């Protein structure tokens, strides 16, 4: 572009120079024409001939005249001689000089002049001889003069011809150059015209694009503000006008930090600008969207989302900011946050409320169910018995709901704690299957267990929870499958220290429609139409199972196809541990006959206290009452008792503290068994209770059957920690299977148990211990599943006795096991009877 322009200019310059030189030549030649370099040459030359002719006449006249005018001859001679000078010298002379043809003529004329001067200048008067000589000279020279004149004429003509030709050539050249220049200028003009046309076109395109840009900028919903390096605003679109409240006319040329930047940010803005201009190190420019605050004309500050770019406009750098007023969004965000916080607060309040309610409901339920239990021990008509049954069953259902709600609440509040301990996984799973297989058989379903290799080992986890979840899953599978089989598989992927265990429960039931795959895990989903318990998801079992699984770092999911059955997969990460050495069973010092115990009841609630009193009295024991921990502590100091039943939540001094003090202070009851009672769930106080020194722990409502079990446990010589039927576990089973199936399960367990005991006794007698360990193991798992923890303890004692090689002790252990089983069965049936 530039080179082209330079080339064009150079061509024009050269042509102009050339034309200038030629023009100058023409001018010089014109001046040459205007200046006469010679006077009329022809005249000068002819004049020579004329004057010589005049001289000839004068000489002839003098010859013929008797009295000749010799002065006239002399004058004419001089004049003629003077005429010779210009021919030889001056400009006319130049014409002849060095001309080969003219030279002899000039030489002849020279000779003539010399001769004439010789005659004229000879002293004395001119005589006739002189005149004759002069005449001869003149006659002799005239042809030469004539010749010279003609020659001069010819040379003159040639010369002026040459000058004319030269001038004409010059003119022609000048003209040609001028024409060339004009042509060049014409071409240049054409080129310029084309360039101009193209420029105009480009300009038009540019303007169109600029118009488009302007309309884009104007139509933008985001404010667009452009500023120069000094921070002066150079563009402000209509969205910016709307957002900031400044008009274009007001703000253009003003500085950003005087207008739209809030005062507290102005220093930072200046510093940032200076830094950027000095180092070009951008923090905000080109850094994507950032949130800042901006200032409206009216002085309010508001949040904006801003994106700044920079463009180079010549030497200046231009900053373009795209701003969006996000005040509304911020307000909405705040509203959302508030709403969420409110919801969270509400949720927490709800959980709190549920926890408190379940506790508060459990306490009166304790009274209701206790009294109903007591009522059953009195003589009732058949009708009354039925009414009491209904009342007790209703109470049980209510209790069940309270328990589930409590579980959910605990999980949601994060207060459900796990009690991880090393446990044998195979025994845990087999226990579940053993307990539930009678039920499957009853429905003509095959219940298969497939245990993956490498899984038959100890893991560190809350085995009870795993069994609870599996019971729920298998129980549901049995409940909802009409024909086919239930397949339980346990597989695992072994990592470095942990195993990802998968418990898959596959059934051949009707399946679950896809839209319900997630719903069945929700809380309370089916409670609204809980008639007949015909669909999955009733109650909270699955929900609790899934939440428990997730609490353990795993998950519970379902895959199902309508008509083809369902597979529930419980995946849990389990830490592998080596099997612990069997802990020695602690010995209890107290051995008392079965009847007539002295019992201290420490309970703040008067109704519950009296219900418990009545129950114990009905069982033939003597009861002492204390209405809070401190009173209980004092009572315990006074005299020794056989058992202390201690409520945990009490005014003045709670049961935990009282127990701790009893255990710590040397007193008559320092080692008396203490049974803790709580209206809270099992979990909250278990650890504290154990640490404080409680022998056992029961949740309210305490039932007559449980009480009997506990008391019977006191009978056994080598009893470990006092145990009871775990009502919660039993109730979960009842929930999972339904009352009738639970009853069947219990019956089956009983018959299997009896068979087992018979076998045990037989083997003990014969001394051939063959099937005993496996049998004990199987029974133990089953008992644990149903919640017959008392039996579990006795089975463990039997297990120990088998290892101890003491037939007498073994027999004794088996006998007490049978005893405990009788009691447990009674209690379990008791619980069952209270459930509708």
């Amino acid at each position, binding site marked *: 572009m530039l080179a082209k322009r330079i080339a064009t200019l150079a061509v024009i310059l050269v042509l102009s120079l050339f034309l200038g030189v030629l023009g100058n030549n023409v001018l010089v030649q014109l*001046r040459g024409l205007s200046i006469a370099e010679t*006077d*009329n040459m022809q005249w000068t030359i002819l004049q020579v001939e004329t004057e010589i002719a005049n001289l000839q006449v004068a000489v002839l006249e003098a010859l013929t005249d008797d009295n000749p005018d010799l002065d006239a001859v002399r004058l004419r001679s001089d004049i003629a001689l*003077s005429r010779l000078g210009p021919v030889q010298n001056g400009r006319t002379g130049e014409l002849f000089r060095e001309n080969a043809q003219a030279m002899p003529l000039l030489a002849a004329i020279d000779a003539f002049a010399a001769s004439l*001067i010789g005659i004229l200048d000879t002293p004395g008067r001119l005589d006739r001889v002189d005149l004759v000589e002069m005449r001869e000279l003149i006659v002799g020279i005239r042809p030469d003069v004539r010749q010279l004149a003609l020659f001069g004429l010819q040379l003159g003509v040639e010369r002026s011809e040459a000058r004319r030709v030269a001038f004409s050539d010059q003119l022609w050249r000048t003209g040609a150059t001028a024409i060339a220049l004009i042509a060049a200028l014409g071409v240049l003009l054409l080129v310029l015209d084309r360039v101009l046309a193209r420029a105009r076109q480009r300009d038009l395109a540019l303007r169109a694009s600029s118009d488009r840009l302007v309309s884009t900028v104007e139509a933008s919903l985001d404010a667009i503000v452009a500023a120069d390096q000094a921070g002066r605003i150079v563009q402000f679109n209509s969205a910016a006008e709307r957002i900031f409240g400044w008009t274009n006319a007001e703000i253009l040329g003003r500085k950003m930090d005087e207008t739209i930047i809030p005062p507290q940010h102005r220093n930072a803005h200046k510093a940032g600008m200076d830094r950027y201009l000095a180092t070009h190190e951008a923090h905000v420019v080109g850094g994507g969207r950032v949130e800042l605050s901006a200032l409206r004309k009216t002085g309010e500050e508001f949040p904006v989302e801003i994106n700044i770019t920079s463009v180079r406009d010549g030497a200046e750098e231009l900053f373009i900011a795209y701003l969006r007023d996000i005040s509304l969004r911020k307000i909405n965000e705040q509203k959302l946050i508030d709403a969420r916080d409110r919801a969270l607060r509400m949720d927490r309040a709800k959980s709190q409320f549920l926890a408190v309610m379940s506790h508060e409901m459990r306490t009166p339920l304790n009274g209701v169910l206790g009294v109903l239990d007591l009522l059953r021990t009195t003589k009732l008509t058949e009708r009354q018995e039925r009414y009491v049954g209904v009342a007790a069953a209703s109470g049980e259902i209510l209790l069940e709901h309270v328990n589930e709600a409590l579980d959910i609440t605990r999980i949601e509040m994060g207060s459900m704690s796990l009690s991880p301990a090393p446990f044998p996984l195979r025994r845990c799973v087999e226990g579940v299957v053993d307990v539930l297989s009678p039920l499957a058989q009853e429905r003509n379903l095959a219940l298969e267990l497939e245990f993956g290799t490498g899984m038959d080992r100890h893991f560190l986890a809350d085995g009870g929870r795993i069994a609870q979840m599996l019971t729920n899953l298998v129980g549901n599978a049995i409940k909802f499958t009409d024909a086919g089989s239930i397949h339980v598989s346990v597989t695992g992927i072994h990592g470095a220290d942990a195993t990802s265990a998968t418990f898959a429960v596959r059934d051949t039931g009707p399946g679950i429609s896809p839209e319900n795959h997630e719903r069945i895990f929700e809380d309370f989903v089916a409670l609204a139409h809980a008639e007949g318990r015909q669909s999955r998801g009733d109650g909270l079992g699955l929900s609790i199972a899934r939440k428990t699984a997730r609490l353990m770092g795993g998950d519970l999911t379902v895959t199902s196809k309508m008509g083809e059955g369902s597979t529930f997969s419980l995946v849990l990460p389990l830490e592998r541990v080596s099997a612990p050495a069997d802990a020695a069973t602690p010995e209890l010092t107290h051995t008392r006959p079965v009847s007539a115990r002295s019992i201290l009841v420490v309970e703040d609630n008067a109704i519950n206290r009296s219900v418990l009193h009545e129950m114990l009295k009905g069982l033939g024991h003597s009861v002492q009452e204390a209405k809070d921990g401190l009173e209980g502590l004092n009572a315990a100091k006074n005299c020794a008792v056989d058992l202390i039943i201690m409520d945990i939540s009490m005014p003045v001094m709670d049961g935990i503290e009282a127990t701790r003090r009893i255990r710590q202070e040397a007193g008559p009851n320092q080692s008396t068994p203490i049974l803790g009672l709580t209206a809270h769930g099992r979990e909250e106080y278990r650890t504290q209770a154990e640490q404080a020194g409680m022998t056992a722990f029961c949740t309210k409502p305490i039932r007559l059957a449980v009480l009997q079990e506990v008391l019977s446990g006191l009978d056994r010589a080598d009893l470990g920690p006092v145990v009871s039927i775990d009502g919660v576990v039993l109730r979960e089973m009842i929930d999972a299977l339904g009352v009738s199936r639970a009853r069947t399960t219990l019956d089956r367990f009983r018959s299997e148990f009896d068979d087992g005991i018979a076998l045990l006794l037989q083997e003990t007698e014969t001394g051939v211990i063959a099937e005993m360990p496996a049998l004990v193991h199987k029974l133990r798992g089953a008992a644990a599943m149903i919640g017959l923890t008392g039996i579990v303890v006795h089975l463990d004692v039997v297990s120990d006795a088998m290892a101890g090689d003491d037939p007498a002790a073994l027999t004794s252990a088996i006998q007490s096991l049978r005893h405990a089983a009788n009691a447990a069965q009674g209690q379990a049936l008791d619980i069952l009877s209270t459930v509708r």
Partner: protein
Amino acid sequence: MLFRSVLTLLQAAVLLTCGAPVLAQDALALILSDQAGQVVAEYDLADLDAMPQTEFTTTTIWTEGPVTFTGVTLATVLDAAGLRGASVSMTALNDYSVDIPMDEITETAPLLATRMDGEVMSVRDRGPYWIVYDYDADPAFQTETNYARSIWQLNRLRTMD
């Protein structure tokens, strides 16, 4: 050139041998007449030498190299004779004549030269008087007209109406 050197030798010979010029220089006076043809003045060399002298050096188309002319301006001569008119008719010995309008005669040009290179001019050497311009001083003098007016062997002036 050859002619000129011959001429110079001859002149030198004449001066040495004769002692006095052969040509009657006195007879060659400048005759001035008025419109009526009445002779109003006759100036010889001495008369002209008595008038204010002007001198310049210039080249001419008739001579070789720069030449110094000395003499009286034409205007001075005419003033001295008290001649007025529209033009002046100048005539040479050979009766060559040329007219010059009065308003083209300035205070300085043309010059009525009496000497060339300090020497009086013989008739053979374009004497006795020669009307010249300072051609080199101004190109405007180098015109055909002025060359024509540069009359030599001048001996008569006459004013015309």
